[in-house]
């Protein structure tokens, strides 16, 4: 039966693929001189919906579009992979939740916070009401019916003792990724292989990056690093985390993951390089998959990743143009190959 569901998903994806910005468009975008010109050009493309009347690109709106597109695809998929993709798509909701927690914790400007949320069409909560909840316990109370309430409550006492938002954020992240891992592991056959190839690989890289971040930036002890990372993360589970926690050099762990880093980099720069290499790998995997018949989970994931890569590159582009970087410099930071950079 899954073949039928995927046929519908494929129809949907094929019909929407043409909305992605193509290579000549990217080349042109890199050549424009100012953010205003950029806005004018984008207003004539498929991302026009996120271009404000003053020419500014509303990037969160674009991310909302990705969430909506993935939400539509979810409806077509067979039950097992539908549950997996729906959970994967919840990362946008989690991102908004973290934004809300940050705003409440630091007492940030409320309208600005609401403006920085990803617009999610169908959602369980009124985000602006959450932003105005006034306190973290009040936020948790309002999301009591959600799966995030319990992990947040677990971390609440620690948060209240130390007033560090980190505990709440890591509690939600771990909860989200642990469930994602379980859902990936529950997939079988071709869907299972796709889930591991796409999401499993992504989670493994994330886990290693987290462990190094805790070690390099957080100066955490091995026990803390192990407690704040995933123990089951496909090719980078507990053994990898233990090695990192005990001081394994970044270059060695990167090589184990299959990334060849530029020589002589500091750990901080090497970490950044791993992240961009991983994103390029994701993009290439998605691009190569999208050209094939899409009657399996990989097709849906590839399409979502292409959408995400587009938003990610648009963010880099807008930021690059805003601070006055040249096209070639921006191109070197994109995940896609353009006329100015071959991936």
């Amino acid at each position, binding site marked *: 039966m899954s073949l039928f569901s995927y046929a519908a998903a494929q129809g949907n994806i094929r019909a929407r693929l043409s909305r992605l910005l193509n290579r000549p468009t990217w080349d042109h975008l890199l050549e424009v001189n100012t953010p205003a010109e950029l806005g004018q050009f984008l207003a004539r493309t498929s991302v026009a919906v996120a271009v404000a009347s003053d020419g500014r690109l509303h990037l969160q709106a674009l991310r909302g579009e990705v969430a909506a597109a993935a939400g*539509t695809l979810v409806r077509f998929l067979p039950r097992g992979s539908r549950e997996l993709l729906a959970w994967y798509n919840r990362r946008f909701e989690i991102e908004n939740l973290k934004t809300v927690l940050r705003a409440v914790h630091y007492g940030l400007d409320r309208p600005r916070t609401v403006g920085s949320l990803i617009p999610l069409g169908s959602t369980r909560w009124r985000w602006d009401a959450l932003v105005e909840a006034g306190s973290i316990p009040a936020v948790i109370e309002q999301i009591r019916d959600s799966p995030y309430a319990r992990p947040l409550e677990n971390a609440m006492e620690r948060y209240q003792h130390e007033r560090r938002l980190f505990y709440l954020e890591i509690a939600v992240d771990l909860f989200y990724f642990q469930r994602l891992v379980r859902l990936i592991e529950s997939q079988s056959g071709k869907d299972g292989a796709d889930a591991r190839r796409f999401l499993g690989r992504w989670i493994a890289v994330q886990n290693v990056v987290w462990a190094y971040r805790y070690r390099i930036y957080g100066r955490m002890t091995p026990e803390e690093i192990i407690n704040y990372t995933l123990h089951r993360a496909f090719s980078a589970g507990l053994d990898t985390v233990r090695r990192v926690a005990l001081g394994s050099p970044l270059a060695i762990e990167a090589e184990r993951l299959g990334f060849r880093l530029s020589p002589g980099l500091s750990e901080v720069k090497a970490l950044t390089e791993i992240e961009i290499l991983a994103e390029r790998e994701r993009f290439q995997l998605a691009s190569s998959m999208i050209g094939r018949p899409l009657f399996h989970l990989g097709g849906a994931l590839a399409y979502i990743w292409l959408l995400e890569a587009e938003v990610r590159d648009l963010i880099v582009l807008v930021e690059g143009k805003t601070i006055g970087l040249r096209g070639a410099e921006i191109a070197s930071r994109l995940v896609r190959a353009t006329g100015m950079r071959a991936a």
Partner: protein
Amino acid sequence: MLAPERMLETNLFVLEPDLELVTAALARMEALHLEDVVPEGWTPSPEWTELANRYSSITLRLGEILNLLASKSMPGLEPDIDLRPTRDWRDMESRLIALETGVQSWQNRLKEAKQELERLQLGESQVQLLLPLDVPVEDLRGLKYQTVTVGIMPAENVPRVAEALFQIPFILIPLQTTKDRTLALAASSTDNAAILERALKSAFFEPITLPPEALGQPAEALAALKRKAQEIHDRLEALDREREKLVSELSPELNRLWLRANADARLAEAIRRFPKHGEVFLISGWVPASDLDELKKAVESAAGHPVAMEVLKPDPHRQSVPSLVRSPRWLRPFEDLVTTFGLSSYEELDPTLIVTVSFLIMYGMMFGDLGHGLLLLLTGLWLRQRGLLLGVLVAASGVSGMVFGLLYGAAFGHQIMRAAWLQPLEGIWTVLIAAVAGGIVLLNIGFALNLVNAWRSKDWPRLFLEKNGVVGIALYWTLLGGGLGVGFGILPKSVLLLIPVLCVLLWMHEPLAKWIWHHPSASIGEALVTGFFELFETVTGYASNSLSFIRLGAFAVAHEGLSGLVVSYSGGRWGWLVFLLGTILVVGFEGVIVGIQALRLEYYEFFGRFFQGRGQPFVPLSLRTGGRHAIVGVRA
């Protein structure tokens, strides 16, 4: 074919004293989709933000009491209720405080009893572990060489802590797990106390201390704790009886207050978004043109002072205009066929009607059998009876299958009568050609709709020069009609000379659009390169899109073949079982396949010609959750 309602941008300049009444009247009417507009020099009013927060807190507190008392009945809001958010909250707050006070003593006693019980149960679990020891419990509280701690942590973190403590010898014993939380005992030597503490802390372990009642030998301490716990259980039963009494006394007022507070909250939330200049508030939004007069009357009768009203035509190129399509009632069950793909934008025609008709024809053509169609019809009616709107679509597909069953003369795989049209297996070529011809008709409807949509949005390059515009259609027909005409000797070969001319026009469409309409475009070189590849894709696309419909015929043939196969194996003693299972397989299996195929043709081949589906739904200001138009398709 339905066009979205014509929308008008409406700006109402309302004096402060009339603001609440006018907003309430608008919300009751459910005809204004609010728009966030803040003109230069206008500012939102902080007092309304404060009021909206106040109502948010009131509804939350009321909801908490209702939840606490497990009170459920919720009648609708009285229709003519006078809503005044600036005034209502005072009454509400004082009533809420009275209600909370009424409930608070009970709530506090309940909370205390539950906490006490939890504490005692945790203590029991700890003391139970000590039963084998022959020492008084109080002697274990000050150990010198061991660090022993008991506490609660998330259940899933227990194995994680064990992994995190890989560097030291330790003991970790889960004692009891309730509601995803585990009571655990952890111990290590005093030297390693810091590592143990860090590991536990980062696993959200919260230490607890033994209850003071736990004194003497472990067995005595346990008995004392159990006696105390039984007292608490008795207290909780008495509290539940008290709750029932509170519900019967407070529920009617609580419900009334809750509904009113919700409506006031919606008004305050809307007004919070209105910018203000001096004493004047600006209410800006979109109104369906057909509702404008009624809206004017509602505003005038609600306001005590004149209300200036500015009505502007929309500029969809500059503004994001919401889309509202009022479908006839009978068409609503089929709306999902379109909204699953996307919502028609303001400038697009809503294709629900044509999609419904074409989907049902395609479905019937692939699933033509009186008997199988009847089964599908009955399944659809059963689904509908169970409250599923999808049932209507299934039933209609069944009827379509029955109609084609008559045309094919088939029922349950048997040829029961002379085919009114043909038997697919006997006339394979006819049915395949008919399928492609049907596809060509549908594609051309798509072309036509694209012309209308382009005309409506004044997108001249799309109307004239692009692949689904006039030039594209001309090329399609020159390739198809011209090719066939020349092949059959009806048309002269010179007709084919049009092909290169149209190809060049299509190839050059971007530079031409720039030249004629000053349409923004990439550089000439880039436009020519991308134009060339687009042209190639367009020409091959015309052929593949048309031939794609051949599947309609192929599935019709396959359906007859598969049904015939079931019939041919249904002889003998167990023939009825083979027939039954075979029919279930054909109806279930093929029923789904042809549905997916028909959807695919709609989404990919048909929508690709004209439909973007990126509309913004019309969601009017309303006092109700959901409101008049608040479904995904936003129809009423």
